Every structure is written in C-alpha cells, then in structure tokens.
C-alpha cells in the first residue's frame, strides 16, 4: 500500500543554523521524488524527519493524512536505505533481509518457513539469491546497496526513503543501480523519496524533483519543468552549467552584449516589462545553447578549444567575460575556430530573471533576423 506524504511547514534548527525553514511539499502516492540540493540544503534532515530519526521544531509530517511527528520511527512503516548501507555486519545477507520480519511481535511474525520464502523472493528481486549466505564485508558496494534495498522492502513499507543511496559508488555502478531502481519502482510503485546532490541522477530517475537550497524549497516540478522553466538563477545553475552574459535590452527586445554592439538574443515574450529599451539584463545561457560563428569583426575572442569526449569545449572572452560553448565534436571542423580567432555569439535559447522580484523570468532566443543583423 503506497503512502501519500504531505510535509507541512516543517522547520528545524540546530543551534544558530537553520536546517529547514518552513518547508512544505507533497509526495503523491506511488511517485519517485528526488530531493535535490547542495550539501547543507536540508534534504537529508528532511528525510530523517520523515523517517522519525530527527524531529521538527514545528510543522507536520502527514502520511496518508495522519500526522506522524509523534509516532515512533518503528511504527511509521518506512523503509530506509542509508548512504553507507548500514548492513548488519555480523549477519549474513539473508539474515539482514530477514531481520525486519524476525523482530515483529509474536502475533504478527510470519512463520520461519514464510520468512525464509519471503527472503528468497526478495533476494531474487534484487538478483542476489546466490549471495544469501555471504557476509556484507564480502560484497561489492553495489551488491550491498541492493541487499539494503531488499532489507528495506521486506517490511512492506508505505514509503521508501533513500539517503544518497548511490553516493558511495563509482559512476558506472551508480548509473546501473539507478536505472535498476527506476525499473523496480516502475514494477512496485512504492512511494519513494530519493535524496541526492547529483542533478543528473535526479533528472534521470525522478518523476518529480524538489530542489532545495539553504533549508528552503526552491522549486518543485518534473525534471523537464525544472530544466526548461527554472524559477530562479539558483535552479538554473544547479541543474547544469550556464554562462552569464551581461547585456542591455535594445529596440524590439533585442539584447546586445554590454560593452559591444553585438546583438545575441531577442526576447520571445513580447510586450514584457523587462523588454523596455535600455534596461540591463543578465542572460543565462547553457554552453550548448551558445553558438559561435567565426567572423573577423566578431567581438568574442577564442581563448581555448578543448575536446572533452563527444563534445568540444570552446572558451571565448567577450567584453571581459569568459564564456563557455559546447559543440558536438563532429561540427568542430566546420566552425573554423582556433585559439585567438574572432567570433560572434548567437544564443539559441536563454533566460533572464527579474532583479527586484517584479514580473516573471524572460525567455530569449536568437534574434530571428540575426543572420542578417
């Protein structure tokens, strides 16, 4: 039975440090939600509060409409997966998975045969049946985390909480295990909350992302929403690299780079207040949205060209700002760019945010007439 979790105005302070500041969010039943944020943003504290391993100073943690703050963690029906596995080191893999069933009060405890069958089924689920009699110290990191997951699932939790579950694993195993978790969630549909500081992991795995910063929720949305419509510069920059280009809005919402005459982008939200001529804006542009065109009269100077896997990373200097552009490697030769060559910038798409909270953010794209401009 999947649980619907509702966090209401939860705050938590540790001395002078505010770990959580009136956080509210909903986790619909059956969803896989990622709590994403830099370290110190309060995401692990929130997870521990939901589990009952920590307590909020104020606020409520509702599971299926019922406040759980006063409930003992053992009664919350929560499965928890720790970053460092927290497997019982003196028990075998099977012993670890069986633990949650063996400690049940006599009336609720399944029989030995039932426990054995259930453990076998869970180990099959995590594809580790052949390791049932091993000790955790004999397992690899990825195997241990799968045992930890089987152990958490054994008690049929209403809610699965995962605290940086792949944080201690190397990249390849992390990706595999992440995908595997995604599939498992697809089959089991247990409400799951995954804490991570890895934006890629969150974007790939989660149905919904809760991005946190300094104890507050910055934005909640699907991965696509967060990536394409970030609510703040913080969200935009956390979900991937971005260039900041200082510009001035000109006639017709055309943005020119401050200090040069180059027009790089045009507002695609016509009539917006920010588009007023003469206004300074900061354009946020992702490296792969920054296009370069070799031109002798271009205002940008190429500082370096580096090949990084499938992409080439080109650094340019424009009016004292260093900007980074990414281009697929196969297109690099046709760009005719080397160190020292001059280029013009074109913004395929970008955003700016209001400085004084007035109005919403603006979307920009290359001016339609740019090729001629």
């Amino acid at each position: 039975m999947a649980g619907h979790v509702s966090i209401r105005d939860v705050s938590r302070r540790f001395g002078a440090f505010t770990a959580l500041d009136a956080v509210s969010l909903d986790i619909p039943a059956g969803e896989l939600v990622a709590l994403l944020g830099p370290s110190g943003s309060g995401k692990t504290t929130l997870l521990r509060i939901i589990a009952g391993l920590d307590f909020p100073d104020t606020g409520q943690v509702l599971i299926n409409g019922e406040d759980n703050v006063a409930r003992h963690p053992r009664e919350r029906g929560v499965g928890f997966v720790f970053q460092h596995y927290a497997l019982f080191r003196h028990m075998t893999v099977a012993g670890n998975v069986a633990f949650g069933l063996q400690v049940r009060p006599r009336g609720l405890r399944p029989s030995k045969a039932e426990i054995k069958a259930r453990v076998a089924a869970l180990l099959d689920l995590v594809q580790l049946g052949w390791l049932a009699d091993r000790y955790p110290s004999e397992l690899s990191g990825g195997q241990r985390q799968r045992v930890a997951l089987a152990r958490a699932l054994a008690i049929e939790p209403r809610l699965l909480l995962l605290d940086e579950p792949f944080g201690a694993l190397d990249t390849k195993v992390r990706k595999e295990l992440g995908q595997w978790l995604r599939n498992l969630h697809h089959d089991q549909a247990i409400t799951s909350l995954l804490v991570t500081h890895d934006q890629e992991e969150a974007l790939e795995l989660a149905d919904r992302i809760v991005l946190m910063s300094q104890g507050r929720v910055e934005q909640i949305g699907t991965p696509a929403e967060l990536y394409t419509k970030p609510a703040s510069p913080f969200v935009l920059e956390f979900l991937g690299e971005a260039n900041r280009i200082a510009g001035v809005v000109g006639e017709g919402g055309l943005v020119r780079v401050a200090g040069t005459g180059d027009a790089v982008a045009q507002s695609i939200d016509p009539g917006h207040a920010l588009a007023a001529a003469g206004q300074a804006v900061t354009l946020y542009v992702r490296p792969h949205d920054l296009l370069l065109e070799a031109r002798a009269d271009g205002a940008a100077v190429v500082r370096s060209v580096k090949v990084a896997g499938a992409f080439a990373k080109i650094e340019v200097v424009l009016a004292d700002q260093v900007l980074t552009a990414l281009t697929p490697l196969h297109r690099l030769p046709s760009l005719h760019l080397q160190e020292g060559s001059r280029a013009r910038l074109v913004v395929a798409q970008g955003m700016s945010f209001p400085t004084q909270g007035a109005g919403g953010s603006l979307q920009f794209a290359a001016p339609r007439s740019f090729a001629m401009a």
Partner: protein
Amino acid sequence: MAKRPAVGLRRQGGVANVIMIVVALVFMVLFLLLPLVTVFAQAFASGLSGYIASITDPNTLSAIWLTLIVAAVALVVNVVFGLAGSWALARFRFPGRLAILTVLDLPFSVSPVVAGLMLVLLYGRQGWLGPWLEAHNLKIIFALPGMIIATIFVTLPFVARELIPLMEEQGADEEEAAILLGASGWQMFWRITIPKLRWGLLYGVLLSNARAMGEFGAVSVVSGNILGLTDTMSLDVKALYDGYNIVGSFAVASLLASLALVTLVAKTVLERQFLTRSTKEEVSA
C-alpha cells in the same frame, strides 16, 4: 599494523645489528623472563606437595575466593557502566561531555594508593560519610564493599575507553536501521549493538579483569589486610612474604603470574580477531 620488513636496515652494518639484538635480548631475559622464571622456581622450591600445601592453606583459599568475588563484581559493574557510559558519550553531544571524558581518565593518572586514601577519607570513620554509615551500621572501609569500590575505581575506564572510539567509528546507522525495521530497544541492543561491539567489549573486560585481580595499592589501603578476611591474592603475596613464607608467597604469586599469562594470550588472540575483522570491514566499506 601490518608487519613490514625493515627494508632500509636489513643489509646494514652486521656488527651494530648483532650488538643491538644482544642488548635487547639481555634486557628481555634480565628484566622480563628471569623474574617470571624465578616466581615459578621459588613456588616449586619445596616440590609439588609444598606448592599444593601453600595453595590450599585456608587463608590463601580465602584470598583466592575474595579476589574472585571482587573481580566478578567489578566486572559486572564495569560492563554495565562501560556500555551505558560509552553509549552516552559516543552517541550524544551534551554540555559537560568533555569534562566527563577527562574525569574518566582519573583512575589512570591517580596513584592507586591515593585512590585508596580518597575512599578512606570519604567512607572511613573520620570521613565525610563515616558518621552516617556508622549510624546505619554499614561497614565499607576495612571490609569487602570498600575493596570492591576501590577495585571498581581503578578499573572503571578500561571498558569505556575501549568502546567509545569503537562506537564513534562504527556510527549509529545500523541501530537506526534496526529501529526503522521495527526492532524494539532491547532487540536492537541485543541483536545489533552487542554483536557489533563484542570484540571491543571482551577486550576491555579482559584488561579490567587483569587489573582488578592484580590491584594492590588501592585495595591495600582500604582493606586493612585482615588475614583470611580482607586479603586478596595480591595482598596475600606480600603478607606471606613479610612473614618469611617464601614458598607460600611465591605459590600465590605464580597463580597471579599464570593469570597474567592467560590474559596476555587471550588478549593477543582477541586483538588478532579484532584487527582482521575491522580491517576486513574497513577494506570492503
């Protein structure tokens, strides 16, 4: 602590090496081995029958019995206090924690005789609690309770000192996992915490036990050395020796020495267990 061959020294000046080895060996034999041999040689100076007669002397039997009682009570107290104390000190941060950690080392730094004197000054007839104790007909100094208290005082830090670093290193994740899986406090304690700590706990108990049985200074001050009544083995050795009963004295001493040897062997075995276990867990962590 893996054994590494001292690569740099191996092929250097042969003479210097031989001299150093000889010096080390002479010191070992002179100051460690010979005294130990002497103890056993003297103990059996009048043959096996003399040895047995010395050991089965009623006063000596009573001393052995008393030593066992004192050590057993101290052991129980040390385990209970050691577990509870280390739990509190390793798992929680509270004001005064550092002060407690410092005071915990007091028995290591205070001379046992001073420790004994402190107890006399506190519980003795002229002591702070003396009149109250006397009014309630409780006898602590020059009696078994005083000896137990003195022994507990000198052995108190051993278990906690062993467990605190171990608990800090292991963290509380496994306990938290157990609770979240539905375990009660007792189930968590017996099925997770104790097995996790068993080698460290056993090691601490062993050390404090060796100290408890061998303690002389503190117990000597509070016991009053009443032969056959408040005499532990260590005190008995001195009493017999002072009474020119050399064989008797060394016979008891040989028992203590055997105990020390057993302790050392057990300690080595435990350390090996402990090390291979923790390195195994570390390497694969």
